[in-house]
């Protein structure tokens, strides 16, 4: 009898919704970036913004550079299966191994998403133009020699070229093209990437920005910043106040 109830208990645990992707269910591959501090920062930023996200009711969510799939899976879980029954998820990566791994991670959490091997959103930008309500990006932001940018395999996941801005500067116009008129972009940057300049640049295109979460990097040289850039017409933070850390 007690065995029976413990089985039932386990069954209950299994049915309990996860708040974010479970590391033990995240697939891996030697050439794929594993969830690290920056991935956790981005997911924690999304979690701390959960109320805003739910209120926002996104219909189309895209992750550029999905790596292991940890972030897009977490986003889908944060939006909740019931509320997000109508949400379309799409994730891309330039690394074919990453896309296969992301597929496994999504499947392990029971999340449906479209996956495409491509550079940023090449091949998707025509059809997804102005359709994306939430875009999440943990870009390769580490300052490196320019020739390392977009290399095969795992290097592409961190190599950001001069000031770590090469890929970020490629992503920003794509984000501007894809985001709907109420679209939001969540992005991780490093102090070295000059995030205030990024915000200023996007402000000229009509985006408001806000730091959702900030953490010191391990080397103490600066901080990682999870920020949100949102289209002006629906700027909810004037009414919602600052987000609270969970």
């Amino acid at each position, binding site marked *: 009898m007690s065995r029976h109830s413990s089985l039932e208990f386990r069954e209950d645990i299994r049915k309990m919704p996860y708040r974010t992707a479970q590391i033990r269910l995240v697939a891996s591959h030697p050439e794929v970036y594993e969830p690290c501090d920056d991935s956790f920062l981005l997911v924690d930023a999304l979690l701390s913004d959960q109320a805003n996200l739910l209120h926002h009711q996104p219909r*189309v969510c895209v992750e550029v550079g999905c790596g292991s799939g940890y972030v897009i899976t977490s986003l889908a879980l944060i939006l909740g299966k019931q509320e997000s029954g*109508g949400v379309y998820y799409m994730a891309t990566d330039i690394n*074919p191994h990453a*896309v*296969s791994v992301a597929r496994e991670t999504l499947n392990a959490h029971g999340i449906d998403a479209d996956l495409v*091997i491509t550079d940023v959103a090449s091949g*998707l*930008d025509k*059809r997804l133009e102005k359709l994306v309500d939430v875009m999440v990006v943990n870009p390769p932001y580490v300052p490196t020699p320019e020739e390392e940018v977009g290399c095969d395999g795992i290097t592409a996941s961190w190599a950001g070229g001069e000031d770590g801005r090469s890929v970020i500067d490629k992503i920003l116009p794509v984000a501007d093209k894809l985001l709907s008129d109420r679209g939001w972009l969540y992005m991780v940057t490093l102090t070295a990437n000059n995030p205030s300049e990024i915000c200023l640049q996007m402000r000229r295109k009509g985006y408001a920005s806000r730091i959702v979460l900030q953490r010191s990097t391990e080397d103490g040289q600066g901080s990682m910043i999870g920020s949100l850039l949102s289209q002006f017409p629906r700027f909810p933070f004037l009414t919602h106040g600052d987000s609270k850390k969970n």
Partner: protein
Amino acid sequence: MRLLTHNMLSSNIKGVTQGFPLQIEVTKSITKQVDFNPDFIKNMLVKVEWKALVEAARAMGYGELPETVEVGMVEDEDFLRKFHHALLEIHLEEGFLVCPQTGRKFPVCKGIPNMLLNEDEV
């Protein structure tokens, strides 16, 4: 790769102006049963390029979709189920997506399309 993915992809080769829809060359297709989710289906109905979906479904051997969609169909469950099947349950597992303008083939392996370009195509 479900046909929803196909519906979102265009040929991204430099200079191509008529890159949508990509033609489908089937090596292997599979059918996966997916829970019927009316919310999702209705959300996607306004985002899908209908003609491209009809042609893609036909290329995959499914000819049950009507040629055009009318407003009232959103409430027609029989129609929504056919749309659901075509959009989410028919998968291109192995094959190619072919650029309609240049004939360039983008491979689909293990259900994942690869849209990466060679240097001379960017």
